[in-house]
């Protein structure tokens, strides 16, 4: 479980996050949603330590990450896997080397063990036989899958996904979402997904945190969305006619 407490962040005079608190539960896909520019990605980066928050703390299973010393931060980071928006695969390495990279750096596994683990992860994300392909030779959806494989290769306790289905067609988006949810349940990890994709919100949002202008306005599950009673959330989720009619029927 990840607990965030009173996270604030400003860039120059602009306050991006204003005292966000909440809990991201283990074994569930926790979604951080909101329209563009509401601070979703900044919050995610504050949680994983890529951005230092102005105030507040992040606790990974009761371990204070924000105020941890270098060694403890390093230990916690070894338990983190992250899928970036564009995949963030290393251009100079092929698929196998990309997925194997965390094992090369963070473990003392033998080459045979590493290859076995890489093949298992690639098989798990539905990619077999692409080990020797370069990132430039695979599609956007495949890059995301390789990114997921790299994120889970070191058996993380926490999986972070920054807009995992941006730039993908709806069918591939759903496949990626389902994959993330399956992995979360299968490995019983804490998964945090930043998204503004409505299919993701309704499909895999076991716990949802809605951000609006840097504030947390609502928290709940996808089942509670329709009856949230929060106007800003309704405006965000039920924007198009289909979604509105769905809400009206409910």
């Amino acid at each position, binding site marked *: 479980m990840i607990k965030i407490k009173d996270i604030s962040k400003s860039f120059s005079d602009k306050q991006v996050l204003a005292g966000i608190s909440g809990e991201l539960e283990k074994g569930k896909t926790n979604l951080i949603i909101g329209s563009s520019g509401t601070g979703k990605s900044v919050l995610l*980066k504050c949680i*994983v*330590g*890529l951005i230092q928050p102005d105030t507040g703390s992040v606790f990974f299973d009761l371990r204070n990450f924000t105020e941890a010393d270098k060694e403890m*931060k*390093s230990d916690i*980071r*070894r338990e*983190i896997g*992250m899928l*970036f*928006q*564009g995949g*963030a*695969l*290393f*251009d100079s390495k092929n698929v196998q080397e990309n997925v194997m*990279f*965390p094992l090369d*750096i*963070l473990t003392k596994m033998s080459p045979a063990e590493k290859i076995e683990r890489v093949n298992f992860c690639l098989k798990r994300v539905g990619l077999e036989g692409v080990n020797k392909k370069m990132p430039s030779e695979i599609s956007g959806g495949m890059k995301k899958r390789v990114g997921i494989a790299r994120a889970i290769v070191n058996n993380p306790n926490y999986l*972070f996904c920054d807009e995992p289905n941006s730039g993908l067609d709806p069918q591939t988006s759903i496949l990626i979402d389902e994959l993330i949810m399956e992995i979360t349940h299968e490995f019983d990890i804490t998964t945090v997904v930043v998204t503004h994709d409505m299919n993701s919100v309704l499909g895999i949002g076991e716990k949802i945190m809605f951000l609006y202008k840097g504030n947390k306005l609502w928290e709940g599950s996808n089942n509670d969305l329709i009856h949230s009673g929060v106007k800003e959330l309704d405006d965000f989720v039920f924007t198009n006619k289909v979604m509105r009619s769905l809400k009206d029927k409910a």
Partner: protein
Amino acid sequence: MLVSTFMGAVTTLQTGANLVSPFVPRFIISNVVREMTILELAPTIMAVIYAGKVGSSMAGGLGTMRITEQIDALEVMGINAASYLVLPKIVASILMYPLLVIVAAVCALMGGYLVGTLTGLLTPTEYVYGIRYAFNPYFITFALIKTFVFAFLISTISSFKGYYTQGGALEVGIASTQAVTSSIIAILLADYFLAYLLI
């Protein structure tokens, strides 16, 4: 190799064209070529070329890694990205650039030899005698000191510009250009101060 060979050839021709007095022996031409090549042309001109080719590549590569979140990916894994990505570039530059300059100096002297002897400006014996005449080994040490300093400056400045790129593809281009410009200015300043302090 091409640049340095022509550099030596042109220096030989121009020195020959300016030493017209019958009281100046012909071997002085190669003597001047040697001093110019070792002291200035090989380390400094090569540094400018190195900054343009390798420096811009370092800045562009690191800048691209930054904007495509590859550096963030390293940091999330708990890896010191600066140390992992930049240190090897600095070490490789400091190790390889002096070798590059040594090769460039040899090529320049060979280029001078070819042009000098083929055009009849001076005989092979005169050229070799001039190369060996009044040789000061300290100049080699001085040239190598310059190469270490230039390699360090180019690799660190270019890496810094690339590593701290923010924005998109346009900013990567700007970072590459700034890396080359800043490196060249630093090379010229360092060149002046090293000459002032060490000669």
